[in-house]
């Protein structure tokens, strides 16, 4: 467990924090060493913890991160709107986003219906990467200052050209996400149909 995590746990449990930071000298030197793993490693460890990419080897994640774009959004900034042309798939590296449906006008205040809030290590927009003429099905707005790591259609094409095995693996994982979403959707439709039938029988 990292020292930061220990402190966070203490804060959550309401325990008193030490007056001085108790960092062992060896740990400090290890973390501060220029030969150690810096910010780049953080992105790699971030992807290691994402369920859909946990089958990727360290080298594959290293290659995969080459194709990503880091985009920073301030709180309440629109990431994309419902009906926009979609070309990218985003991972939430830091912060959180809200997804709204029925948001077709340009007024930010009228955001439509909140569907879900996504936090760190979650992802959205995979349809934009796969579909040819994709239209975003919902509006996504940054809930706080948010950092996203995005991969776009030209990057996927480049990945398939230069690293076909990696590209195929990533496509397989994206297809799995789509399949899971389809499964969820089917289950929801089934339950809604059931509810409608129940209501019809009552009427």
């Amino acid at each position: 467990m990292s020292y930061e995590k220990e402190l966070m746990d203490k804060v959550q449990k309401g325990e008193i924090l030490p007056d001085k930071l108790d960092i062992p000298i060896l740990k400090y030197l290890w973390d501060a060493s220029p030969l150690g793993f810096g910010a780049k490693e953080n992105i790699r460890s971030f992807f290691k913890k994402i369920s859909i990419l946990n089958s990727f080897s360290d080298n594959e994640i290293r290659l995969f991160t080459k194709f990503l774009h880091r985009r920073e959004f301030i709180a309440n900034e629109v990431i994309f709107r419902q009906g926009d042309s979609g070309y990218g798939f985003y991972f939430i590296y830091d912060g959180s986003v809200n997804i709204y449906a029925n948001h077709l006008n340009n007024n930010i205040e009228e955001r439509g219906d909140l569907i879900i809030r996504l936090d760190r290590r979650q992802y959205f927009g995979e349809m934009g990467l796969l579909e040819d003429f994709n239209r975003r099905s919902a509006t996504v707005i940054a809930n706080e200052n948010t950092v996203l790591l995005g991969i776009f259609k030209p990057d996927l094409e480049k990945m398939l050209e230069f690293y076909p095995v990696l590209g195929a693996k990533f496509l397989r994982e994206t297809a799995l996400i789509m399949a899971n979403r389809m499964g969820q959707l089917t289950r929801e439709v089934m339950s809604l149909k059931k509810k409608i039938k129940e209501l019809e029988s009552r009427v």
Partner: protein
Amino acid sequence: MHRNLKIKLFLFFFLLFATILFAILFPRLTLPFGFSYIVYLMSKPLTSLLMTGSKKQRFFFSTLLILGVSLSLLPLFAAFYNIDTDFSEFSRQLPEVQKNLQDKYFVFKVYIFEKFGYRLNIDPVTFMVKKLEKGGTLLLSQIPNYLSSFFEWMLLVPMFLYFLFFQSGKFGSKLVAAIPNSIFEKTYVLFSQFNTKFGEYIIAKFIEATILGTSVTIGLWAIGFPYPFVLGFIAGLTNILPYIGPVLGFIPALIIALLTHDPKTSMLAMCLIYLIANLIDMILVFPLLVSKVVDLNPIIVVVSVIVGGQVGGVVGMIVIIPFIAFFKLLFQEIYKDLSVQL
């Protein structure tokens, strides 16, 4: 929209506008950069070929490439040597050609006078010769300028090529990172598409011109027509211009056939060679290589070539097509967005 986001968007468009203005105002930098960029784009498929696959495959492709380049250099040198001798021979024969032309025009004048009683007072041959002489003098006076431009290019092109091959990755990612969030996806995708289309178009046209030029050269050489290398080279070069190119490439051969040869046999064979070479180009090469990339209406292509020629000369005529293809994509995107908003 947040104030800072608005400022960022304004700065981005301001910088974009300033860059375009700089490119227009300083063509001495823009043209060598454009040339270097074309070379860079043309080499991209090779780099992708050499970067993908297993070590064995990469080794195989590298060896094949070195062998191919070495072997193609030999005939290229031979062709250039022949172009030089063809040109010298043509210059040597030019006074004879002029005399021949004047004689033929005199016969034509007499025929018109006898038939219609009308005396032709214009002398197009002398006019053409004077124009040529004037052009030649102008060309000679411009030689120091051309030489200084040549040395400038010799210095700038390798520098730009080094930048494009080794530094453009980092520079490009910084440039991409600077695109404001609100327009990021569309701008990035459109820019990538333009890059791909432009590169593919240049390579396709280069291959098409080489195939046509080679077929014309071989054909003319086989029938013993004069200056086969020069005419093949001109045919290949003019073929880069869509639709108008084949006609322009045929004119020099027609003039030579009319002036220097018995027009009955060799002219027919020469016409057949140009026809066959252009048919091969139209039926096989163009549909396979170019049309997939361009995907534009023929009328739009012809109009664009004329407009491009008026704006930017020969370079404009060549470059206008991928630009029009890009604008087509851009307008399609805008139209799609507008239809959703409606």
